[in-house]
């Protein structure tokens, strides 16, 4: 019988809170305000490209107070906040703050995890008896102070303390900015009673609709719902059980996920891109995808390409090969095989390439075929030169036209390629 069909009954976890969640809210905007004192107290938005069609990737608290939200276009944001100052992302700055945050977190426990660039978790299990005997609230305040001392006086963070990761994140979002909240079994119901379903991380419109269809309209009703209702009626899977445990303070989110795909995408810089333009962009995207693969020590057997046309139509194709590849030219060659099959009835607006079926790249294994070895050694030599003098010092002639145009931007969520991104700056 599948796990989600078994009847599960658990009390609210009575464990003392041992998880501390740190969230640097409005991280990029706050770091920019820290770096440039003249921006402090002013509405600031950070964008990946300083153009008229730019999109806000982070807004300062001052901008948020005026209604500016992440994902908003520059023109809309400017209507809401006429004094808005747009600045372009600067990855090395965020990388520095990210490293500092990790260093601070590591000084309290060996078990830490970064959920994204600006969110981290300290797991205090096993450290409380000998190392961290002080209350976690005291440690939380100390982390806030250390962040201000070691990075800058403008830096603020929210701290949430709870028995599991989910509730710790929820606690960190209760009083922004610069809050510190604790959720225990004693105040769990009270905390949830003041929230909406969509305030819970992981519950957006669709999950809300699913819950509403089962008569669940508030987080408290969600907490009181039996596991069987959640798994059989609402989520129709083991996810229902996970939610049942999560809301009761039992840990279900301490899992690490392997990399499944590696890729890049680019919105065309021209309205009517020629064949030559498309090929140069494809070459550059393939080259940087291969760089990401090599950075992680991976090779890929499958390639996938996705195009969006001006009329909104999409086309995609994938293919699995026998031999794994990791060099730029090999990835480009395989992408070209798919790209040549594309329909040509409209202008391409967006292009996305990715590799899947990843496995460890056995770069030490010399091939019996001389041309394969030459390709691998050439790629290795180019990587060595680029690591000495900066990325794209040596690059493919086919991607030269796209070199300055396609920039690797700040990744949301994952921090796997941060080092690679900063080396390219």
């Amino acid at each position: 019988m599948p796990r989600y069909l078994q009847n599960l009954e658990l009390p609210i976890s009575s464990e003392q809170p041992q998880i501390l969640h740190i969230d640097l809210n409005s991280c990029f905007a706050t770091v920019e305000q820290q770096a440039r004192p003249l921006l402090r107290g002013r509405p600031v938005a950070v964008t990946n490209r300083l153009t008229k069609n730019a999109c806000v990737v982070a807004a300062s608290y001052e901008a948020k107070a005026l209604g500016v939200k992440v994902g908003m276009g520059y023109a809309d944001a400017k209507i809401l906040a006429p004094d808005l100052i747009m600045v372009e992302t600067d990855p090395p700055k965020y990388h520095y703050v990210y490293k500092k945050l990790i260093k601070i977190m590591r000084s309290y426990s060996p078990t830490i995890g970064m959920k994204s660039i600006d969110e981290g978790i300290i797991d205090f299990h096993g450290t409380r008896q000998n190392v961290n005997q002080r209350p976690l609230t005291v440690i939380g305040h100390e982390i806030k102070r250390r962040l201000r001392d070691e990075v800058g006086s403008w830096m603020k963070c929210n701290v949430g303390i709870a028995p599991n990761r989910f509730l710790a994140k929820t606690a960190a979002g209760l009083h922004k900015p610069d809050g510190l909240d604790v959720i225990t079994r004693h105040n769990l119901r009270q905390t949830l009673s003041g929230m909406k379903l969509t305030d819970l991380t992981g519950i957006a419109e669709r999950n809300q609709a699913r819950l509403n269809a089962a008569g669940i309209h508030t987080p408290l009703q969600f907490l009181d719902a039996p596991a069987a209702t959640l798994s059989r009626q609402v989520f129709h899977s083991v996810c229902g059980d996970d939610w049942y445990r999560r809301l009761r303070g039992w840990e279900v989110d301490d899992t690490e996920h392997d990399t499944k795909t590696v890729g890049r995408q680019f919105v065309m810089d021209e309205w009517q891109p020629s064949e030559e333009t498309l090929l140069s962009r494809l070459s550059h995207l393939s080259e940087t995808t291969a760089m990401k693969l090599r950075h992680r020590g991976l090779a890929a057997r499958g390639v996938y390409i996705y195009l969006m046309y001006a009329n909104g139509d999409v086309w995609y194709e994938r293919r699995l090969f026998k031999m794994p590849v990791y060099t730029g030219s090999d990835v480009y060659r395989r992408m070209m095989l798919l790209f040549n099959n594309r329909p040509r009835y409209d202008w391409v607006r967006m292009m996305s390439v990715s590799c899947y079926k990843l496995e460890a790249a056995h770069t030490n294994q010399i091939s019996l075929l001389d041309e394969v070895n030459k390709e691998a050694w050439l790629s290795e030599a180019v990587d060595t030169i680029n690591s000495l003098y900066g990325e794209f010092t040596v690059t493919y002639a086919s991607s030269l036209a796209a070199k300055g145009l396609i920039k690797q931007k700040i990744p949301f969520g994952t921090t796997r390629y941060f080092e690679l991104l900063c080396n390219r700056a």
Partner: protein
Amino acid sequence: MDQAEIINKDVNIVAFYFKNTARRLRCFPKCMEYDGKRIKFTETGLVHPTKKGQRMIHVFDMTDGTADYRLEFDAADLSWKLIAITDTQYASISPKFRTAHQF
């Protein structure tokens, strides 16, 4: 839109100040000679390292109270470079977000 004027020129840092931060004595620029003028920095924003290939570059974001300056210190040849000046006329700060030192 933020308007940064890219300079990218070597400059002389004629005065420094030292600060004991995070159990280390660190050095920061205090006064810079550029374009025949002496610019005295009033506040340090963020100091962070970055790499240009294998070369370690220390980036200093400084302000003199009227403009922001981005300076780079090359640890290999000990040279200072002024990268950009941002001298936008910003609107005044809303009283709601004004901090004690901005009054």
